[in-house]
């Protein structure tokens, strides 16, 4: 026998189930009066620095059906590439930008939607810049452990081509699964990021 390592084990994950909205966005499922506003709805305010953008999309299962009971969380840097987090040690992020958002997929259409800003560049571990990206976390009934992925921007071709994380993807055609397509909606740049849990277009998910 050798000495014991004393680390604990992480609590095992369990599915968020069909009713995660009761806990995460109770007002959205008409449980009102417990607290005033669901967390994560508003990411930007009038004083937030940076280019306003819309991020939207749907989450598809292996049959091509959009999930109507999923919850999406995003986490991103501010316009200068700084995170609004006590763990951020490179500088002070825009105090008017939370950087974290949470939205359910619509119960009828399956669409999620965030109003946010385009993030700046964040360095990889070796100092090279990662292309602008938004971290996604997806939970739903039938998903046993939350899925981490990233959204990149279709109009950042040069940065995407240099991104050390995208470069890690061995099957190059799968890089496209992380790149949101730019269009315009009411004069705002709008990026559509569809997530495919399974099938030919399966999104690249990360073990981070």
């Amino acid at each position: 026998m050798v000495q014991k390592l004393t680390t604990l084990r992480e609590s095992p994950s369990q599915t968020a189930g069909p009713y995660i909205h009761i806990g995460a966005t109770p007002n959205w499922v008409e449980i009102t009066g417990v607290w005033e506003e669901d967390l994560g709805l508003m990411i930007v305010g009038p004083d937030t620095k940076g280019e306003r953008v819309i991020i939207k999309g749907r989450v598809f299962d292996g049959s091509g059906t959009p999930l109507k009971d999923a919850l999406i969380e995003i986490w991103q840097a501010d316009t200068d590439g700084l995170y609004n987090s006590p763990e951020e040690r490179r500088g002070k992020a825009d105090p008017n930008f939370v950087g974290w958002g949470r939205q359910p997929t619509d119960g009828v259409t399956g669409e999620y939607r965030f109003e946010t800003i385009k993030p700046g560049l964040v360095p990889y571990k070796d100092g090279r810049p990662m292309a602008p990206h938004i971290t996604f976390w997806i939970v739903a009934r039938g998903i046993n452990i939350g899925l981490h992925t990233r959204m990149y921007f279709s109009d950042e071709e040069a940065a995407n081509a240099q991104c050390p994380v995208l470069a890690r993807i061995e099957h190059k055609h799968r890089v496209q699964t992380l790149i949101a397509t730019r269009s315009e909606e009411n004069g705002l740049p709008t990026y559509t990021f569809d997530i495919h849990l399974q099938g030919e277009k399966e999104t690249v998910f990360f073990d981070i």
Partner: protein
Amino acid sequence: MSDQGSFYQRDRSWHPAAFTPQYKTSVLRSPQYPLLSLDNTISEMTGPRFGHNKIGPLDNDLIRNFAKTGDPIGQRIIVYGRVLDENARPVPGALVEFWQANAGGRYRHKKETYLAAIDPNFGGCGRAITDEEGRYWFRTIKPGAYPWPNGVNDWRPAHIHFSIFGHAFAQRLITQMYFEGDPMIWQCPIVSTIPDKAGIEQLIAALDRNTTLPMDSLAYKFDIVLRGRRSTMFENRMEGN
């Protein structure tokens, strides 16, 4: 905190696999390609932090936070515990959110079809932020078991859903708490997605007679463990070098 390194790799064999056919919904919702392994970058080593000022005084009191005409029906319980990391260090300032069915096993949700009655005085959601020692607690009623469409006669054991924000997005976790002594835990297709019996036992809260409030509430202790971080004590490199 800021002098710490990246998080220990998640032990995927300790967690449920994505594809667990006994839980039918997982069949079409499970990625089939391997996950892309990535040592944490700043994007995952940071995370939002929620201040105590976000939390109202009744947020951790499910007996009162939705009540309209009186207390909800059911057995009054206290659930308490600590949020720790794999290094057994407390995680202060963690946001813990919880949601559950009422005493009859019915959720307050318009898609819910179980015929057990809705309790007019029970909403079923609450939240807390851990203190300096990683502690949280809340008061609620014990949820009932409920049937669900999977097999023709599958029932969920009594459980409370938990969502936890630690200090980094890499630690993000959703799980469920079960109750000591419940035989239905061992018959549940969702519980059994966890491969190891010891892993399941980690999610079973212990009945704690010492914390029970006499003539008032039973108490259950439920500790939650989030991923731990590497120490950087042997690392002199600056970020980015």
